[in-house]
């Protein structure tokens, strides 16, 4: 960690975490967006954390951005700098600032707490009145965010020219006067000299020259990943935090000759998507928590009828309406098992924004090859945060899912002959020369799709649907182990816990302890070879953002225990509806190891 506060003026730091706290209508998120884009255009990694308020407007809103010169793995635990726009922002977030950190507050609205003056370096700036002075009063406090952006640019010696260009791009469509107002606000903040806070710090240059970066949120990465994979049809119903993806696809797909249909409900959405998949090209639907429950019957049909489908589940806090704008990893069970009967489906989980892009592509590939529904789990934290990542080589990776209506001499939609469970879907429009046409059905069926309740047939068809997942498992890459391949403790994670786990392992090793971490991306089926990895560690802790349940382990841990019958697999769980902090993981692992020693 960098000590910002023993530094002399103009010293260089390798990373900094800034938290902005205000109200949702203040445009705080857009400051984060500008900084992320700036970082994407510079030689800096950026990862940001954003929370959105549960209230539509007028509620508290925060944005935390961590800017770093090297690889940034997590959004940072405590902030180095806090911007507090209101008294409630000051009171509510001061504990998130690390001791000795810089607290910039709007002196028009905030009365600092006398007792805390020595804990943090307080800098009061009349942000509201200075903004009104700079751009004229509209009475609605607009422009404070851009003024604050200017302040930050000044404090950290950021590239003001690039930021001004970004402001131009961002507001260009709204007309010249809007751009000018924004630039005025930015300049006023940038030139602000009080307390000599300008040029306090300078971010060190990154190491190696980096390739081009793109900057986007996890939800955007999912949407563009689907487009790159050739998806041209989708259907959905609005629900937070999935809605961004459907809005993006609704807007973007027509450019590619595709459509996204807003439906009357979740069931219609998944059904329309399956109907389009049946039409010959893999389609997508998605939702969050409650919506996934509603889609369950139709997903089961797609398993039975062997139709390809991609279902995005942007997880939020549950159960029921739960915590719509907070993060949790508690949909793993419904993704794997959310259907009646034996209904094997594929479940993948993305770990960060970049991974959202590539995992969306992988989901389409698997759905198509195996004619199976693929559920892609992301979560509210990845969905809404912005990261920069190396620009994909689109010419190389983009694919079209062409409609193949080549006539065939004969066709069995549920052909059992291959033994690996795979069979091919022939969409309507395909001429089948022997005149025997398929029925695609949710009733148990024979190889032609005609109804069969025969016991032997049901055994064979159940095996077929299960075997294709085994075939898929054989082609999955072994998961990557970070750290030594044997030792006392293995931390297992999935989804967005990857970054914090990697950092935790790094921190442990800085303190002389040896730990390893394993990230599981393919949840169902699991990749082969996990047993051999687990056997090399004395303890295996599965770190998840869900409940440890009645028996002390969470949802992935439950899957792993069922698979390996290994009682050493235990859970480290969290249900605070917030992401894991690196320090929390370290504390919890230390406590566990302490208990082990005490009982030894």
């Amino acid at each position: 960690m960098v000590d910002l506060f023993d530094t002399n003026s103009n010293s260089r730091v390798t990373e900094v975490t800034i938290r902005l706290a205000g109200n949702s209508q203040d445009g705080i998120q857009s400051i984060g967006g500008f900084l992320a884009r700036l970082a994407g255009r510079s030689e800096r990694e950026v990862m940001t954390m954003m929370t959105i308020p549960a209230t539509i407007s007028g509620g508290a809103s925060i944005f935390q951005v961590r800017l770093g010169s090297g690889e940034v793995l997590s959004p940072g635990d405590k902030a180095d700098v806090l911007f507090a726009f209101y008294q409630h922002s000051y009171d509510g977030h001061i504990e998130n600032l690390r001791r000795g950190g810089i607290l910039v507050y709007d002196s028009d609205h905030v009365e600092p707490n006398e007792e805390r003056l020595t804990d943090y370096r307080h800098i009061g700036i009349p942000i509201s009145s200075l903004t009104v002075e700079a751009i004229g009063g509209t009475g609605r406090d607009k422009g404070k965010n851009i003024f604050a952006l200017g302040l930050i640019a000044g404090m950290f010696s950021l590239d003001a020219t690039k930021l001004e260009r970004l402001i131009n791009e961002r507001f260009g469509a709204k007309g010249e006067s809007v751009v000018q107002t924004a630039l005025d606000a930015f300049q006023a903040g940038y030139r602000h000299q009080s307390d000599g806070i300008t040029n306090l710090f300078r971010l060190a240059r990154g190491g190696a020259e980096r390739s081009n970066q793109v900057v986007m949120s996890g939800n955007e990465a999912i949407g563009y990943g689907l487009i790159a994979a050739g998806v041209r049809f989708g259907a959905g119903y609005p629900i937070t935090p999935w809605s961004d993806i459907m809005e993006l696809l609704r807007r973007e797909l027509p450019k590619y000759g595709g459509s996204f249909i807003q439906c009357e409900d979740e069931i219609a959405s998944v059904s329309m998507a399956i109907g389009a998949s049946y039409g010959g090209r893999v389609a997508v639907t998605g939702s969050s928590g409650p919506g996934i429950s509603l889609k369950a019957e139709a997903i089961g049909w797609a398993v039975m009828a062997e139709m390809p489908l991609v279902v995005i589940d942007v997880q939020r806090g549950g159960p029921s309406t739960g915590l719509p704008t907070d993060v949790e990893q508690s949909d793993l069970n419904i993704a794997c098992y959310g259907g009646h009967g034996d209904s094997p489906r594929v479940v993948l989980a993305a770990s960060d924004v970049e991974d959202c892009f590539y995992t969306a592509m992988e989901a389409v590939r698997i759905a198509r090859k195996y004619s199976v529904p693929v559920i892609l789990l992301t979560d509210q934290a990845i969905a809404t945060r912005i990261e920069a990542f190396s620009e994909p080589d689109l010419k190389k990776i983009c694919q079209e899912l062409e409609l193949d209506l080549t006539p065939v001499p004969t066709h069995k939609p549920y052909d059992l002959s291959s033994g690996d469970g795979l069979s091919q879907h022939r969409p309507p429009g395909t001429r089948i020369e022997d005149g025997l046409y398929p029925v695609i059905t949710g009733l148990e069926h024979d190889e032609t799709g005609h109804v069969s309740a025969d016991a032997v047939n049901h055994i064979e068809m159940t095996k077929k649907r299960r075997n294709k997942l085994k075939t898929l498992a054989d082609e999955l890459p072994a998961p990557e182990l970070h750290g030594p391949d044997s030792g006392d403790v293995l931390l297992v994670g999935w989804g967005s816990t990857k970054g914090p786990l990697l950092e935790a392992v790094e921190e442990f090793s800085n303190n002389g302890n040896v730990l390893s971490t394993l990230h599981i991306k393919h949840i169902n089926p699991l990749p082969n070879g996990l047993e051999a990895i687990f056997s090399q560690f004395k303890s295996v802790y599965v770190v998840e953002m869900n409940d440890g349940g009645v028996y002390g382990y969470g949802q992935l841990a439950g899957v792993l225990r069922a698979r390996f019958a290994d009682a050493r697999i235990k859970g480290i769980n969290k249900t605070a509806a917030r992401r894991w902090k690196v320090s929390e993981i370290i504390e919890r692992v230390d406590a566990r190891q302490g208990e082990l020693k005490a009982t030894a």
Partner: protein
Amino acid sequence: MSDSATLEQPPQDIEERQPVTKKEIASNHPTWCRGCGDFSVLSIYYKLIQKRNIHHEKVATVTGIGCSSRLPYFVQAHGVHYIHGRALSFASGLSISRPDLHVFIFGGDGDAFSIGGNHFIHTARKNIKMTYVVMDNFVYGLTKKQTSPTSPLGFRSKTDNWGALDRPINPMKLAISAGATFVARTLHTHPKHLLEMMDAAMDHDGFSFIECLSECTEFFKGAFDASNPRKGGEFNLVPEDHDPTDEAAAYALAGEDFPGRFGIFYRVQRPTKNALEAGVIEAAQGKFEGEQAPDILQATFNKMK
């Protein structure tokens, strides 16, 4: 995997294909009870396919759950037996993404107006191009005689031993008010009229809905006796001077007491969802003439730097 699936145009009928025969279209023998009205609908569907000479691959038959929804197994063509109540949604995805097909949906009154009621309203409102034939028997037959959403008041079923209490849905009124652009009513005992309605529905550019009274001889025998003319009489058809573009007149017809009228109640032209979405695509693609997907996506990514 076959990432390199080649672009194949839908096969052109270069060689002269023989007209479709009934033998080619008929598949498994229907599992319906003797005397079921659904036989009549199936045989008229065969007739329609023959009359219009629709080759197997040009049509898709989609159903939900119910006695009538078994129909795809009896037709030798691409067919789908989907889940209860959601056939319209499935068919909508197919219709919008595959304009080269004519999509037929068959179902019963439970499928259409009870579990699938919401989809019926929204499919009508969106005017998605396809033909929906509801074989309305006023009872749940597959599950053996429970009250259906169209069961008349007082109908004694296993779920209403004392007679149905809930006011039945009027499918014609529902369709008209939801915004359907083709609304017709027919009955299984008048095959010529049924074929006429299905023929007209297929010609309609939009969502075409037909309610076909189809008797369940097992659980609601004689339900539609009043609709059949006595010897020498005539079916109670829509009056010749009825203007099917007049919504109020159509609604008034729909309100007539049982057995009511048969024919086209309402028929208007309104842009289909299919055409509207195609228009959105055309407008969006206009700005990217000649550009491939990677170029278009690259242009977007360039703004995200």
